[in-house]
């Protein structure tokens, strides 16, 4: 059974977003949710990509979907019925989305209602945003307390991330109601050190200089990611790899821990340690 803490659940909403498609949002949402659940936080990961359901495959529960997020929003099923419990971690749950409907099935009121209900039960609510900056992506970020902006060290991805950071600062409930910003941090994924060394890919320093937000973590390009997706295993639950260590370190920083940069890279410790400031 879930180890429910005596105190009230944290109820923190974190959106995984990017603007550009295919940069690693779903991979990251699954990994971050699983890493939080491994640390005994009761965690749910929600698929906001209506019509292009993929989180269920990455989490390996695609055969068990009965009801989804949209059914709950439209009152056709209870939240309890749509939540799928992970078979590996009893602190981890997934709320799949609909494969047959479109983004218009999401309403701001419906999303808020579901998130409020989830906040009463879960410590972390991880929202896997669709690509783009349209309705689906805006609803995924609207109620967030924090944001992880997934970026590849590549011009169009960085440009889109900048656009998304602008939206996070203006088009979210926090920004509108309290004038407080959603805390945004950048997660650089698919980093290819050989191409950086060859001068073909921007460095993390370059990306951070342009985006001017804190760095949550760096995930190297890794064959382990494809393997994990083949078998439906969030990367941090599969065999240890450079990518899984990257996600574990990112989640430690998300929780405000100071991370020994040695854990994510065996080489060049000095190179990484200067990129991460002390956690706020």
């Amino acid at each position, binding site marked *: 059974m879930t180890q429910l803490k005596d105190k009230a659940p944290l109820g923190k909403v974190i959106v995984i977003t990017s603007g550009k498609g295919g940069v690693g949002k779903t991979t990251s949402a699954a990994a971050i949710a699983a890493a939080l659940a491994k640390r005994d936080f009761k965690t749910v990961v929600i698929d906001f990509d209506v019509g292009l359901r993929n989180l269920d*495959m990455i989490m390996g529960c*695609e*055969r*068990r*979907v*009965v*009801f*989804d997020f949209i*059914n709950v929003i439209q009152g*056709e*099923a*209870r939240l*309890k*019925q749509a939540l799928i419990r992970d078979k590996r971690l009893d602190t981890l749950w997934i709320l799949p989305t*609909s*494969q*047959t409907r479109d983004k218009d099935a999401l309403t701001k009121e419906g999303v808020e209602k579901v998130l409020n209900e989830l906040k009463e039960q879960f410590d972390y609510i991880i929202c896997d945003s669709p690509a783009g900056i349209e309705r689906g992506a805006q609803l995924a970020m609207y109620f967030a307390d924090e944001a992880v902006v997934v970026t590849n060290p590549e011009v169009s991805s960085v440009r889109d991330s900048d656009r998304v950071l602008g939206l996070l600062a203006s088009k979210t409930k926090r920004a509108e109601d309290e004038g407080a910003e959603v805390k945004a941090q950048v997660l650089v994924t698919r980093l290819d050190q050989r191409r950086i060394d060859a001068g073909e890919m921007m460095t993390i320093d370059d990306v951070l200089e342009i985006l001017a937000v804190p760095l949550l973590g760096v995930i190297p390009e890794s064959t382990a990611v*494809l*393997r994990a*997706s*083949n*078998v*439906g295993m969030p990367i941090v639950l599969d065999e240890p790899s450079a990518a899984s260590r990257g996600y574990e370190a990112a989640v430690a920083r998300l929780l405000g821990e100071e991370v020994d940069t040695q854990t994510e890279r065996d080489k060049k410790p000095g190179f990484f340690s200067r990129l991460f400031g002390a956690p706020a």
Partner: protein
Amino acid sequence: MSLFGFSFRPRRAKSAKTAKDRLQILLAHERSDGSAGPDYLPLLQADILAVIRKYMEIKEDEVDIQMERNDDVSSLEINIEIPSPGPDKSVASTPLRKRAGLG
């Protein structure tokens, strides 16, 4: 599975095969569900509840529906908690089986 019964990189071969198998099962269901869509489930649930309510009082919260899709058969399991007059609650289990490919 390897053509030769062995492989130099068994792990990798295995994960690609797993990916293909998972997709084939999933897509067979998604395609056959077609126009009926997975959306028949809310209606099915409502109908089943209505029938059972003719005979006893149950709450919507006490219905649990589980699905497991496999390559030949899928199982849909509906568990309804029935309040019993005694101190213990009895649970009626109604596993419905449907053949894959029928939508």
